[in-house]
């Protein structure tokens, strides 16, 4: 069953067409990888699906609901989480404070309370523990290493308990031990029912983790299937080598 899909999306920036009739469908509960040479439009597609960019044409649908051109906060509220290629954390806030920002309570009363209720605080700590950052709770986020920042971003995206998470290059610039760690975390969450769509250049990571891989080139999807068949698809090879 398709949980999140984009159909026929077109997005141009001035004269540069980033996406042209691009379609992708993410099955619920899957670990889907999105690969393609640089400039193929992967991050643009992500931006379009999460409300950071508007579309010129096409649709984005989530759980049967049209969310084309929705704002990022709406997308977030619907249960779609997203990380960025260049990690976006709040540098001057501590690790724990970063987590609390993500815990948004409803209603006016929420504003007056302390930074978080005991329940939220417990959940924040639980998630920090999940990614192994508990010891660094009180460190300003800007002092973290690159890999640690990625983990923090991953953790706070989880606060809202999203049903689908879009990861933009989760393994980028990260050491092999960390990559293994991340892989385990992602698998653990997937087992609990979270759907993942990830953009990655690290083939080993993608092929090892994902059960389905989509390939893009020049703004369109050119291949879609399980890792094995995609790996040997001639169009894919041409895209990477011919580009």
């Amino acid at each position, binding site marked *: 069953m398709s949980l999140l899909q984009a159909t026929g999306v077109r997005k141009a920036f001035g004269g540069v067409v980033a996406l042209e009739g691009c379609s992708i469908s993410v099955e619920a509960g899957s670990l889907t990888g999105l690969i393609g040479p640089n400039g193929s439009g992967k991050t643009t597609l992500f931006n379009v699906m999460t409300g950071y*960019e508007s579309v010129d044409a096409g649709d984005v649908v989530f759980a049967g609901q049209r969310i084309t051109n929705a704002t990022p906060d709406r997308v977030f509220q619907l249960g779609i989480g997203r990380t960025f*290629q*260049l990690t976006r954390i709040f540098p001057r806030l501590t690790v724990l404070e970063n987590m609390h920002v993500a815990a948004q309570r409803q209603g006016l009363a929420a504003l007056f309370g302390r930074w978080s209720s005991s329940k939220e605080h417990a959940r924040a700590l639980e998630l920090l523990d999940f990614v192994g950052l508990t010891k660094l709770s009180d460190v300003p986020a800007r002092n973290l290493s690159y890999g640690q920042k990625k983990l923090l971003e991953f953790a706070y995206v989880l606060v809202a308990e999203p049903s689908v998470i879009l990861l933009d290059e989760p393994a980028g610039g990260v050491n092999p031990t960390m990559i293994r760690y991340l892989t385990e975390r992602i698998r653990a969450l997937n087992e609990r029912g979270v759907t993942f769509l990830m953009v990655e250049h690290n083939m080993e990571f993608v092929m090892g983790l994902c059960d389905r891989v989509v390939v893009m080139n020049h703004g369109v999807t050119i291949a879609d299937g399980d890792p094995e068949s995609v790996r040997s698809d001639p169009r894919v090879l041409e895209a990477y080598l011919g580009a």
Partner: protein
Amino acid sequence: MQLIVDAIITGVLSGGIYVLMALGLTLIFGVMDIINVGQGALVILGAYLSYLLQQHFHIGLFVGLLITMPVMFALGVGLEVAFVRPIRWERTTLSILVTFAIALLIQGALSLGFSTNLVQMHAWYVDSSLKIGSFYLAWVYIFDFILSVVLVAGLYLLLNRTKFGAGLRASMQNRTAAELVGIDVERISAITFGIGVALAAAGGMAYGATSAFNPNSQYDLISRLLVIIILGGMGSLRGAVVAGLAMLVIEDVTSVVWSPVWASTVFYMLLVVVLVFRPQGLFGQLAGRRQ
């Protein structure tokens, strides 16, 4: 009706003067990402320098530019290196405070040197007018406009036909990328600041020849210049030209059609109105949702 036409003509001609002053401001912003709030004070400094040259050394106003512009250019470079370059943190706000501090220093020095009495420069072209139809236009407006055109054209050539200009335009578009290809961005910043201040010198002479001024005039000037560059779009040279001309025309027409008292308020209100619909100004770029 005739009055409106006259207002438009005057507006365009005085707009040219403001364009000159505003160009320096938007250029500095485009390359260095800072707002030189001292531009108004620098213009007034230029005006006083021209005045001084004329009164004490009997050097004509336009000829005097050959001295004031290089001198102010050097001053600009010096200011950038001494006070702007060292700012590493919170550049946005601190550069505003620093350039404002420089403005205060200049204003203070000028008050001490020249007193706060209003000053007006005189020359045959300031005091005599050309008759157009039923309306008199001081010659100086036309000369000033020509000066603007010449300098704007010169700036255009500099930016588009020289290697330095290419480096400058590259820095405006992407500072880091420019650095990566070996462009000395710091040097370009200093020189750009110098150019901005040199343009202020020219603008100062042009302004001083058409209006009475004193050190306090810097507030009124800088607020208008800021409005012009925002309306035009920060960093857009084309925007500064269009906005400068447009704003002055609108102000002069309002003065005639409605009242002089409200004409200056219209200036600011227009900014607010435009921003409601187009926060990036006419030719600017929207600070888009960051990646």
